[in-house]
């Protein structure tokens, strides 16, 4: 016989489906999660900070147990898996009972039930048939749909509301599983990475959080990005004009801002940051002929761009340093911010064999120009090139998560605020054997409100019965008279 194995299996099943197991797992998950917020975590904290915070032995131990990355540790996944299992087991264990209750509602109150029901009332009646009709009318008046139940040659009334609220708990538990499922799908098939683009650049490779790279099934090109500021200088809006290129063709185009991503083929591209790339976009200059009386003209140059000043002369931007320092007679860049720019131009004329090199330092406008140049240049303005930081993520499971959230909201609202209420009305005999109308009610939550509702129903029945009986009496007299 398979006795012992069956009993072991059954014992495991009973343990899994016990509320106590669920609560213990809940407590363990809480403790583990709390630990994950107090102990510095690996992917978000950089290695240096961890080494500063903990001693080497401590760190080695924390790493070994997985406490430096609790939420991706195998035992955390195991805990969550077990929690899911207990939810499933407990639901399966309890479902048949609830389903029986749901599928076969208790429609006719027998004498045992009547004696045990706390909310009930009995009205003495003269004409039983008429009394049941009154009850039917009142039920309908209070917008309950009474059903006629015929059993043992006796008719009784039954009405109920919100029976499906009995199943709400299962909806909530199922929604939780759905959310977990979404999380698992994303953990297995989803990814998240970063991509920085400058104006006009295109790329299809993203940097994942783990440090690896991943190639997207399409390329993204940035056709411009920018930042708008509030008057106090804090950023108000970051935007990027993105183009999705698939097989070299433009497949989609959208301006994204923070909170409004581009979605293409299940992959979302988010505006995440914005900053200076250290590259020049354009410098605006005024060129004036050094000798003679030519007109001054405004030119704008990008890196390595050439502009024609007159038929014989052209100028090219050869070097741009956003923030220069001079050390040992050499010019170096100190930062990517255009705080102290240096611009070098190359002026080519047909007459001179060698081009003239001109340095412009906008912060030091009095530095003398190269006398060999046929033009002198005055700095007007410059525009820096910027990169836009894009967060790219693929989360195929997110729709499961949102569906789960919606389902849970509906389930919780049903579970907490919809009351399953039941009303019975039937003809009985009181203790002295006279006919009576018995009305009872039951609810599964919020009893005070239900009691008020039942009270209203009972009062209605009482007044209707009172209106009924004189009429009945007079009609009976009339019928007697006719006889």
């Amino acid at each position, binding site marked *: 016989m398979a006795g012992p194995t069956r009993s072991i299996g059954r014992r495991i099943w009973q343990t899994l489906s016990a*509320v106590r197991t*669920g*609560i213990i797992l*809940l*407590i363990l*998950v*809480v403790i583990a*999660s*709390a630990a*994950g*917020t*107090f102990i510095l*975590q690996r992917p978000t904290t950089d290695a240096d900070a961890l080494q500063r915070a903990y001693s080497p032995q401590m760190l080695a131990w924390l790493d070994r147990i997985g406490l430096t990355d609790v*939420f991706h540790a195998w035992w955390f996944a195991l805990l969550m898996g077990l929690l899911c299992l207990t939810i499933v087991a407990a639901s399966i264990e309890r479902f048949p009972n609830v389903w029986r209750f749901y599928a076969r509602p208790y429609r006719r109150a027998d004498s045992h039930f009547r004696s045990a029901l706390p909310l009930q009332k009995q009205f003495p009646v003269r004409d039983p048939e008429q009394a049941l009709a009154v009850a039917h009318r009142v039920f309908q008046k209070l917008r309950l749909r009474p059903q006629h139940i015929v059993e043992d040659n006796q008719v009784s009334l039954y009405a109920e509301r919100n029976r499906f609220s009995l199943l709400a708990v299962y909806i909530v538990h199922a929604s939780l599983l759905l959310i977990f499922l979404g*999380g698992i799908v994303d953990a297995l098939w989803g990814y*998240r990475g970063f991509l920085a683009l400058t104006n006009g650049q295109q790329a299809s490779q993203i940097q994942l959080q783990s440090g690896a790279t991943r190639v997207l099934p399409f390329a993204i090109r940035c056709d411009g990005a920018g930042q708008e500021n*509030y008057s*106090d200088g*804090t*950023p*108000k*809006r*970051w935007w990027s004009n993105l183009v999705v290129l698939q097989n070299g063709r433009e497949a989609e185009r959208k301006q994204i*801002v*923070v*909170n*409004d*991503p581009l979605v293409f083929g299940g992959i*979302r591209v*988010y*505006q*995440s940051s914005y900053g200076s790339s250290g590259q020049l976009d354009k410098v605006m200059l005024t060129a004036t002929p050094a000798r003679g009386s030519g007109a001054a003209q405004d030119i704008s140059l990008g890196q390595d761009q050439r502009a024609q000043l007159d038929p014989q002369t052209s100028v090219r931007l050869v070097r741009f340093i956003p923030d220069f320092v001079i050390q040992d007679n050499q010019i170096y860049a100190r930062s990517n911010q255009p705080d102290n720019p240096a611009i070098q131009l190359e002026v080519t004329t047909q007459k001179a064999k060698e081009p003239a090199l001109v340095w412009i330092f906008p912060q030091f406008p009095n530095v003398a120009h190269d006398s060999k140049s046929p033009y002198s240049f005055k700095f007007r303005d410059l525009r820096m090139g910027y990169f836009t930081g894009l*967060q*790219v*993520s693929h*989360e195929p499971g*997110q729709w499961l*998560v*949102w569906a789960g*959230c919606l389902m*849970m*909201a509906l389930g*919780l*609202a049903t579970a*907490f605020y919809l009351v399953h209420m039941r009303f019975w009305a039937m003809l009985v005999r009181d203790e002295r054997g006279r006919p009576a109308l018995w009305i009872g009610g039951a609810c599964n939550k919020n009893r005070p409100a239900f009691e008020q509702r039942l009270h209203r129903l009972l009062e209605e029945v009482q007044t209707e019965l009172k209106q009924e009986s004189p009429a009945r009496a007079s009609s009976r007299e009339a019928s007697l008279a006719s006889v």
Partner: protein
Amino acid sequence: MARTRVERQPATSSSLLLVLVGLGIAFLLFMAFLNVVKSGNLFTEANLLYAALIFYGGAGALYLGFGVTGTERYVRYASLATWAGLLANTAAVAHRWYVAGHPPFASVYEMLLSFVWTLAALTLVAEKKYGVKVIGTVTMPVAIVGVVLMQLLRTEVHPLVPALQSTWLHVHVSLAMLAYAACALSFALALMFLIQDKMQTETFLAATSLAVTAGYLGILTRFEPWGGLSVAAWDAAGKQDMFLSRGVRLFVTIPDLGWLVGLVAVAVATPFMCYLLAGWRNDERFFAIANRAVFVGLLAQILALAAFLARANGSYQSPDADGLFPTNLAASPFILSGLVGGIFISLLYLLLLWRRADLERLLPSADALDQITYKTIGIAFPLLTLMIAAGAYWANRTWGAYWSWDPKETWAAITWLVYAGYLHMRITRGWRGRRAAYFAILGFAVVMFTFFGVTYLLPGLHAYA
């Protein structure tokens, strides 16, 4: 003048407080009016808040008077004053919303503004709908502390950084405020249940003493060698913390305050020690000593608060940098709330000690309180769920991930799990009464940690509030 008041006192003892509070409100409003006339601008946010503070103060005094004397008449006038304060507060919120162009949830100041409003509104709801009249004794002092704290914080309207410009943010934060307010209510109701459930006054003694001691031990983590107390340096012109380098706060040491806080910690821990001794020696006399120690502890706490208030504004040396650096009350909101909170808790205990019979007469029955607590959590739990879902949706639209195990997220989930545990124990295992009340109190403690503790102790993405 003083003599006539003394003579009248016995005859009109219940009117005296009313008259005093009424005169106080009238006087303060008149002074404020003179100020307004001089500046020529009536409906500014500061004025509205000032009016709210005056009315809440009056309401607090009357509720406290009701708590101490049990005179029903006070409550009527107290709720009248609360209505007036709520009106001014509503106007302040509306003004803020209009000027900022977004609902007032974006900074700590704005959160406090909304929180105080919610608290006052809930007080009136609890009083009118559920008949829990004494609740103002607890909530009004909290509202007053909130309004006073607001005066110390940055008040100028900050434009929203790009990540916060989302309707989902407002949905998320409104839900959070509602859910947390419901949790706070369930906490207060659970405490009242414990009073009605004939929990011994001595147990409250131990619990309050332990809570206050924990607060003082928390402050003592800032203890510096040679008896100083370390507080953050404060840039008065910019109304913000001073930083040593990016992300590293500059701390200064107020000398001698550390010792004082240590001594007061011993004083507030004494009642708990006496409680333990009474249990160990089985001697009732220790309770009498403990109650006296609470009183001494209260005086010591007031002394500590006074010393802190006197010394918190000034320039002190820092262990990390040379020279004197200024600090301000506003730089240490947690020490301040710890000190004020401790006094408040001790006062509540003394109220219970002296007026327990009145409280029991005034509060609804234990069963009713148990039911209302459960109902409140029945409201809080779905709100918590929706709040987390809205937050996840917002995060997904902003950062491309709906869940990243950020400390705030994790603690929100823990809060949710704790209340889920409560509901399971109550529904499937039939937990009622004491155990359910303890669970409700635990739940609120976790909420408080999620709201304050995570923001200030644990770093993360959720850096707004």
